[in-house]
């Protein structure tokens, strides 16, 4: 009897452990996949967009997937990261990384203020508040026409070569060097994802999940939930700011709609489509959204009609999102195979 219990077919077990290993290192796997895939994908710009919006969706996912906060104003920080980076580049022509740092300082400082207000309420009230504050920032930038260009957008953002001291400089201007710009974005995004992964598996990240499951219980355990959620909001704003900074460098132009409620809605759709609460899901969602948009827009003007309809179906029937449903399926099969 004891012998038959050990007689598990070896090859299948091997496949399963590989699957576990991939699941344990999602960021490394994702980085390798994205780094190699670009060599065969013809649409380099679409691939770069995927990275930028994937990071944006991931920062949103920190809130919804891990803290249980549904923000309808996450584009605020994406847009401010973009504007901050672009304006600093335009005024002072510093190193690219310095400009990006300025953008994400602006984004996370604003996140600190807005988060402090919005976190006075929870659940759907929080959602409405983030939307309202998003509109407020939108109108401030709309009125500050002299600085931001108002609804004409901010044009002519210079993108200098990337200087590495003592080594030389690499041109990363996106139109002429799509591949080197892609790898520049990839390195930044992967660094951010590793940071996000580190944050989420830290005790802080665990506390965040505890609050998501039951804030009352977490408070009873002695966690200052307001402070923890605010910190999560600032982190999410910071990484959204990085995504925004990359966006500004990529297009060399920022439209005011970058921080409108539409962009805020797009990131909600991407994250939910892919599946929140995982590290890979938001990227899958961003990829599905962007590829479909690219494809559908060739045939019709009403992409948002299809996006809305797909999203409604997703909420009704696949609340776990595409990636969440897929991994759920694989996991249940794995459990069945073992048992």
């Amino acid at each position, binding site marked *: 009897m004891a012998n038959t219990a050990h007689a598990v077919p070896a090859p299948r077990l091997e496949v399963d452990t590989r699957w576990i290993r991939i699941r344990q290192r999602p960021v490394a796997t994702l980085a390798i996949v994205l780094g190699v895939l670009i060599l065969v994908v013809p649409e380099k710009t679409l691939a770069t967009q995927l990275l930028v919006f994937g990071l944006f969706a991931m920062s949103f996912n920190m809130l*919804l997937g891990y803290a249980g906060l*549904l923000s*309808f104003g996450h584009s605020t920080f994406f847009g401010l990261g973009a504007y901050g980076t672009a304006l600093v580049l335009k005024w002072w022509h510093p190193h690219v990384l310095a400009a990006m740092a300025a953008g994400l300082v602006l984004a996370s400082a604003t996140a600190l203020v807005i988060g402090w*207000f919005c976190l*006075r*309420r929870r*659940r*759907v*009230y929080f*959602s*409405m*508040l983030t*939307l*309202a*504050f998003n*509109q*407020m920032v939108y*109108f*401030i930038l709309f*009125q500050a026409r002299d600085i931001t260009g108002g609804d004409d957008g901010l044009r002519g953002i210079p993108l200098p070569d990337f200087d590495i001291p003592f080594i030389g400089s690499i041109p990363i201007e996106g139109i002429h060097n799509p591949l080197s710009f892609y790898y520049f974005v990839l390195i930044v995004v992967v660094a951010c994802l590793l940071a996000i992964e580190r944050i989420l598996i830290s005790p802080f990240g665990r506390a965040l999940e505890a609050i998501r499951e039951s804030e009352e219980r977490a408070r009873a355990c002695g966690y200052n939930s307001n402070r923890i959620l605010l910190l999560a909001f600032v982190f999410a704003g910071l990484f959204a700011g990085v995504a925004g900074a990359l966006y500004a460098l990529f297009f060399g132009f920022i439209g005011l709609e970058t921080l409108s*409620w539409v962009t805020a*809605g797009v990131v*909600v*759709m991407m994250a*939910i489509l892919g599946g929140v609460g995982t590290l890979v899901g938001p990227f899958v969602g961003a990829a599905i959204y962007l590829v479909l948009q690219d494809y559908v827009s060739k045939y019709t003007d*009403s992409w*948002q*009609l299809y*996006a*809305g*309809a797909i*999203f*409604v179906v997703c*909420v*009704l029937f696949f*609340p776990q999102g595409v990636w969440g449903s897929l991994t759920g399926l694989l996991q249940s099969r794995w459990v069945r195979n073992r048992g």
Partner: protein
Amino acid sequence: MTGVVGGLVYVLLALGLTLIFGLMRVVNFAHGAFYMLGAYTAVVIVSLTGNFWLALIMVPVVVGLGGLGVERGLIRPLYARSDYDSLLLTFGLSFVIVELVKLGFGKLGQPFSAPPALSDTLAIGSIYFPKYLAFMGLAAIVAVVALWLFLQRTDLGLTIRAGTQDSIMVRALGVDFDRTRATVFALGIALAGLAGVLNAPFAGVNPDMGLQILIFAFVTVVVGGLGSYWGAVAGGLLIGVVYSLTSLLFPQLAQVAVFSLMALVLLARPAGLLGRTA
């Protein structure tokens, strides 16, 4: 005065939102889309019959029936799930509605004017005031009072108020709660439709008209306190007055002033002016 009337439009929308949220725990992100749908339904009815008054009566009915369909088909499966799911669903739905209207009527606005009987101005002393604006304010007040009486004096109103407080108990007492929820959703949507047709001659008709006003309705609800009837009324009037006064004095700051007001209320009374702390 313009501010008060504009505020009454926010009141109608916020009351619908509050009513729906109170009973169903659904934050209806498609509320602005239904408001826009109300205005377009009015455009269609007026172009067919040429009668504004018929449109005024028909629009809430038609749009309310649309709301009934949405509740039955899309929202009902989500009651058992998290409160985010219905919010997300109505958010997606608002995209679909707005884009369908753009497909049907074009992206640009539609002409819509007040009925001839109300198109001139009213003179109170030396102040001239558009007659339509006075009518709009009056109609909104009638709707607000009628809804209040309905909630206070009828059996269904009693059920709704009871369900807002404790839906499990109401169900245990043998009330067909599914039907109550459907009615309330249709009622809230009908109010949005009514606001749409009332505001159409004044604010214009275009596919995106629901967006800005939805956000103002949210602000109203936050300022007044979600779930509070007179909170929504007070919040809407306050925001209408603040908005129109700042538009007059510092037009650039009007939007920001409204949001600052909201931030102030949040600081002083997180539950809203008349809201109870949970």
